[in-house]
């Protein structure tokens, strides 16, 4: 059975790249372009994993992750941050928001598929 993945990024290029990688890995991919849309789609679509950018307009990935991890309807969905913020502090803070994984851009198929496997 294919996994349903929600990919969230405000960059159309990164969004298309991740969508291609995950589709090739056998996922059914849905997308959102900001944190607010991601939270709404997570509740409505119940994906099995969320790949979430951090720096986005309207609602950033940290806030979206906090909301997702506090909501009983979505707190069981693993969130993987996919971001250009590559400092150790960013990764620690990401974990504190409830993320289960962290990928530093540029995204490669190996990085994304490894995270896909790691979060089950």
């Amino acid at each position, binding site marked *: 059975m294919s996994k349903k993945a929600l990919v969230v990024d405000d960059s159309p290029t990164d969004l298309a790249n991740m969508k291609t990688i995950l589709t090739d890995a056998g996922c059914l991919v849905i997308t959102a372009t900001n944190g607010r849309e991601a939270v709404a789609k997570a509740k409505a679509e119940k994906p099995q994993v969320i790949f979430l950018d951090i720096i986005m307009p309207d609602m950033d990935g940290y806030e979206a992750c906090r909301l997702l991890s506090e909501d009983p309807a979505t707190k069981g969905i693993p969130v993987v941050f996919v971001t250009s913020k590559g*400092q150790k*502090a*960013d990764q620690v803070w990401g974990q504190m928001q409830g993320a289960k994984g962290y990928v530093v851009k540029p995204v490669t198929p190996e990085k994304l598929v490894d995270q896909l496997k790691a979060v089950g």
Partner: protein
Amino acid sequence: MSNIPSAAEPRPAGEWLSPTEALGRFEPPQGAGLVVAEEAVERVRYGFKVGSLSLLVGPQAGSEVGPLAPIAGIPNSPSWLLGMINLRGNLVPVFDLARACGLDASRASAEPGGEESAAKPMILVFDKGEKAAGVLIDGFPRALTGLRRAGQLTGLPEPLARHVPAALAAADEVWFEFDHESFFGALLDSGAG
């Protein structure tokens, strides 16, 4: 001129008591008293250290944390306003809580942008957009759960005392809940004056 009869006046049957009268008539049942119970606080909070202070904020208060970035000082500003940082194009003021509270602000020195460690100063940014404000903290914040009401608010510096509504305990440590919005507001008012 008021339609509410005073407590001394006889009241027609079936008429409502005023709130003050109603509260004044309450007598607790025999044997009942005020008990300050240790109340568990289930939600996760972020704990951070500023000098000898251990402070807590809610999960939505801190928007991000980062290593000590270059801070542009502001001439003639109070010593507790360290200056501004450029957070992805947004100017964010950075405060030194230790100085604002009159604490010993001696910290391990760190070069801006250097490799961060648990003890090195970092900047915790509260809120976002125009409300964003950073504070210098010692090391990473910690996610804390299973906190219990500690009940006592002692040993707080005077400038901070009015902005700490509660003390919570985790393991052997007492953490003070920090109302950052009211604190920053008061700080800026005092600086403006």
